[in-house]
């Protein structure tokens, strides 16, 4: 069996003796007999490192890693700079705990401060926290932070990712906020239905941008409508789009959230990703989770600390703004490295490449007779055709290509990124042409 206990059995027995204990049994004497496990755990025997690695490799090989991916819908296949992996493999940064002891955690704290700066730059917002679990929980937290004494209703567009809506629904099931969803019309938030849903009890309006169907929304107008009833405007954005598309701040958002996965994190069957959250200065004390601030030591030397901690669970307990403790710090580090590697120009180029490929592919599909439902879109779009989606997607799969996400029998949600070359797109189009 493998073990990470350094001491030999003999050494262990010595320690036991020096601790004044006669046996392991005595050491566990606090555990009453009636709850002691009488048998060995029913688990396989341990293994050597080589055996474990082989077994896990075998398990991994049962998955299909597609060579060409046209599926997004909340998880995106973008290029990850080599530097990201290199930094994340630094054992110190990887195996540090939450930076409670600031003096020996300046590296971690500074990386979070830089991450916060990056998120503020991308979103245009004033303040960012140090991350939450993912984009969906960021939405749940954002809705909760907008709640006020007389404002208990969250209005959410159905053009938001269904996984995000369902998560918000769970958070509202917990804290007993009222959740009202507004239907999408032609793959966009229905403005009339939205206005109807708004009233004085509305705490916030949540939309996604670009929305689940890839479309850009009339975000500024939605924001105005929210502010008209003194509700907060929450925008869930694809951070990758912000190289090219206006920032949430420019649309008037009070809170900007989203999933940071497109910024340097692998698909990894859904996680770990990270949720980013940024707000106006006025709302900063309602942000959940950790926040790093700049300060000085006794000699005036600049340093970083966890700050505004009185918001948090370990101090405020049942009155905390959230229960979050562990976040996704290492993923935030990845985002920090990613943003430094790309720079503004690189991010703009990547966003432009993704959008350009998507528009090219949409044009090609349209040429095959598909109806492109999304009109003003970024890098995702919906097509409709008489042809059964399953037939199309199976044909692609056979050739090692992951097609778009089937929404129903006739509609597919496609996604392109800088990873899809024209050649790859043309190949997919050829395959689709054959079955249509």
């Amino acid at each position, binding site marked *: 069996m493998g073990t990470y206990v350094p001491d030999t059995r003999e050494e262990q027995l010595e320690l036991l003796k020096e601790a004044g204990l006669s046996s392991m049994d005595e050491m566990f004497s606090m555990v009453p007999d009636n709850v002691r496990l009488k048998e060995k755990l029913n688990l396989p025997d341990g293994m050597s490192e080589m055996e474990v690695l082989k077994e896990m490799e075998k398990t991994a090989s049962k998955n299909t890693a597609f060579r060409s991916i046209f599926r997004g819908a909340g998880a995106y296949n973008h290029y990850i700079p080599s530097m990201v992996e290199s930094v994340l493999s630094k054992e110190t940064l990887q195996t540090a705990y939450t930076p409670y002891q600031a003096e020996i955690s300046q590296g971690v704290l500074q990386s979070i401060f830089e991450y916060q700066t990056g998120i503020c730059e991308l979103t245009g917002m004033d303040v960012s926290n140090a991350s939450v679990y993912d984009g969906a929980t960021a939405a749940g937290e954002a809705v909760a932070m907008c709640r006020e004494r007389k404002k208990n209703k969250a209005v959410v567009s159905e053009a938001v990712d269904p996984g995000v809506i369902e998560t918000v629904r769970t958070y509202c099931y917990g804290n007993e906020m009222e959740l009202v969803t507004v239907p999408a019309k032609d793959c966009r938030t229905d403005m009339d239905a939205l206005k109807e849903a708004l009233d004085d009890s509305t705490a916030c309006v949540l939309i996604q941008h670009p929305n689940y169907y890839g479309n850009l929304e009339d975000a500024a107008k939605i924001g105005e409508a929210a502010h008209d009833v003194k509700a907060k405007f929450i925008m869930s954005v694809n951070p990758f789009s912000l190289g090219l598309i206006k920032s949430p701040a420019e649309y008037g958002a009070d809170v900007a959230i989203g999933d940071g996965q497109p910024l340097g994190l692998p698909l990894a069957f859904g996680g770990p990703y990270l949720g980013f959250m940024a707000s106006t200065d006025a709302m900063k004390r309602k942000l959940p989770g950790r926040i790093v601030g700049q300060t000085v030591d006794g000699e005036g030397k600049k340093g970083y600390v966890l700050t505004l901690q009185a918001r948090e669970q370990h*101090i405020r307990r049942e*009155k905390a703004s959230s229960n979050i403790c562990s976040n996704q710090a290492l993923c935030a580090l990845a985002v920090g490295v990613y943003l430094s590697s790309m720079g503004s120009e690189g991010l703009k180029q990547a966003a432009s490449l993704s959008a350009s490929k998507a528009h090219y592919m949409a044009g090609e599909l349209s040429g095959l007779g598909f109806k492109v439902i999304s009109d003003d879109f970024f890098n995702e779009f919906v097509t409709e055709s008489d042809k059964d989606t399953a037939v199309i997607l199976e044909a692609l799969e056979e050739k090692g290509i992951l097609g778009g996400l089937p929404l129903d029998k006739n509609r597919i949600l496609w996604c392109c990124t800088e990873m899809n070359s024209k050649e790859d797109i043309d190949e997919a189009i050829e395959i689709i042409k054959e079955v249509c």
Partner: protein
Amino acid sequence: MEFRTDLSYTKTHEWVLLEGDTATIGITDYAQDALGDIVFINLPEEGDQVEMDTVFADVESVKAVSDIYSPVTGTVCEINEELMDSPEKINESAYDAWFIKVEGVTEHSDFMTAEEYEAFVESEQE
């Protein structure tokens, strides 16, 4: 430790200046000292109702949050906005750094005089 004779005091360490049916409320010098460096203060809004012996605000130090109780029942007519940006004023001069003013005071808790409060604080320290 300062105990101003023109003010009334409560067992939960607030001071009150009651003029007619209007009360000005803050925390005592002893309280600010016990709380340590205050970094933020959460206050109610103008127009909010406050109730005697119930929490109306809280003050944050770096590692703690403490509830502040209202010694009177009435309506908040003014809050000290300055404290939002400069909470250190509470540490610097607790009796000048009032939190809120309450009008239409209908009832108040049992007050102590400065002398009584000083004795109370001494007994608490023991």
